[in-house]
């Protein structure tokens, strides 16, 4: 009997699912080697089917998306119970990703923004409720939690596979590895490891030339013309997150002329991604007077978005304090 495979989509954009499909013919290997038992985006299955499974009966679960509501949490716990290997798949599951930036606001503000701003036509001021009586009975929608959490804040996670989304060639490599493990040809990495990544940071794979850096001014990339295509972007004053971001993507963005924005998260063993960028950017500032340093720092207009775009929910401080207090 083939080992069982599951994939789930919690709070996320769905790009991770596309990335899996984007492995092209490799997807056939999945089908060939696994019995897909639960994958809502690809096949029909009911939660109760999963609930009925034996504990630990699923060999591999790729869980993408973070935990935003009680349904996400329920399924995360359920899949943990039923799976041997649970992989936090993609940046959302690993560290909250873009949805995690919602942690800068109290949940009430988020709902208010969604249902009552200029871009929303809501003349009757209708807000969603968690339960609603209809003739057929009581309907439920999931309840939003105060803050968004990465998967490992809710359940024990075996492996982390970052990326927004994970690169297809990395997914393929991981699938290959698991197949080999199943066949007894390879061994699994130690529990808790980040998989599908390189062992350094983006600069390692970036072809741009690098020198000793002294920054007198930070600028947005669109404000620099022309951008030197062969020189380290940070040296040109563009706050590129590459130095602190885990390698594995083949420096896709710097190769394409854009700065790294950090979707692969911190390098292995790093406790807080944002702290690494704070120290990286401030280390190369060439000034000693507080006023001058402040002036240079003004070139990074949104420090939080800059250093925690993908990692806020997974950072040491996890969220804006007001979000917790709400």
């Amino acid at each position, binding site marked *: 009997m083939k080992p069982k495979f599951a994939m789930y989509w919690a709070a996320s954009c769905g790009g991770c699912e596309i990335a899996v499909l984007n492995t092209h013919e490799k997807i056939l290997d999945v089908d060939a080697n696994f019995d897909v038992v639960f994958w809502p985006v690809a096949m029909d299955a009911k939660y109760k089917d999963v609930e009925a499974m034996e504990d630990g009966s699923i060999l591999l679960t790729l869980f993408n998306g973070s935990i935003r509501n009680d349904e996400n949490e329920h399924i995360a716990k359920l899949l943990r119970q039923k799976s041997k290997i649970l992989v936090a798949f993609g940046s959302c599951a690993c560290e909250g990703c873009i949805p995690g930036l919602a942690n800068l606001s109290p949940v009430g503000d988020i709902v208010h923004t969604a249902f009552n701003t200029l871009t929303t036509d809501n003349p009757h001021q209708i807000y969603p409720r968690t339960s609603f009586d209809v003739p057929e009975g009581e309907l439920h929608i999931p309840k939003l939690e105060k803050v968004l959490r990465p998967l490992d804040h809710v359940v024990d996670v075996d492996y982390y596979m970052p990326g927004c989304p994970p690169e297809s060639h990395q997914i393929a490599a991981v699938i290959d590895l698991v197949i080999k493990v199943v066949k007894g040809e390879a061994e699994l990495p130690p529990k808790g490891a980040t998989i599908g990544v390189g062992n350094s940071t983006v600069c390692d794979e970036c072809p741009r030339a690098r020198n000793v850096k002294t920054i007198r001014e930070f600028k947005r990339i669109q404000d620099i013309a022309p951008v030197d295509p062969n020189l380290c972007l940070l040296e040109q004053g563009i706050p590129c997150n590459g130095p602190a971001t885990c390698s594995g993507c083949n420096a896709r963005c710097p190769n394409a002329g854009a700065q790294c924005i950090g979707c692969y998260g911190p390098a292995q063993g790093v*406790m807080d991604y944002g702290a690494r960028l704070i120290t990286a950017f401030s280390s190369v500032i060439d000034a000693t007077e507080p006023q001058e340093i402040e002036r240079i720092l003004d070139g990074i207009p949104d*420090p939080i978005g800059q250093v925690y775009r993908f990692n806020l929910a997974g950072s*040491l401080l996890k969220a804006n304090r007001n979000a917790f207090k709400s």
Partner: protein
Amino acid sequence: MTHNTFEPTIIGFTCNWCSYRAADLAGTARMKYAPNVRLIRMMCSGRLDPTFVLRALSEGADGVMITGCHPGECHYIEQNYKALRRYLLLKRVLKGMGIEPERVKLVWASAAEGAKFAAETTAFVEEIRKLGPLSWGKDEGGGMKDEIKNGDSSLTIHAERSSFEKEVAA
């Protein structure tokens, strides 16, 4: 002193060459200061990784004091400037996190400035006391995996009243 008086817990990072010695000097001279700061010795303020500050704040510290040699007097020539730069960017990030940037303070104190160290410590404790606890709020919703520590009540520190306070009360 009433039991509900908030006593801040503060982590202080000190430089082996200046501020840690200033703290030693304050001790040798028996200067009294607020007991809320717990010190960590590093070789230089340049060693200060912002992670340490974030860790302290996330693990229950209400404030963080970073101390180093005066500008131009660093034992390692100029590393305190690096601490200064990190500190300034870190404060911007903290502000975005809804944390009062004043909870993190950079103080220059030379090895000779025991009195300054004591005074700055007491002053900082007062500032943090005014700001109140760095409360993340109880997370009833689903709870975070790491329970936010609320302090061992048996270890709650009752600060001595500062001389300034006495003066005001006088």
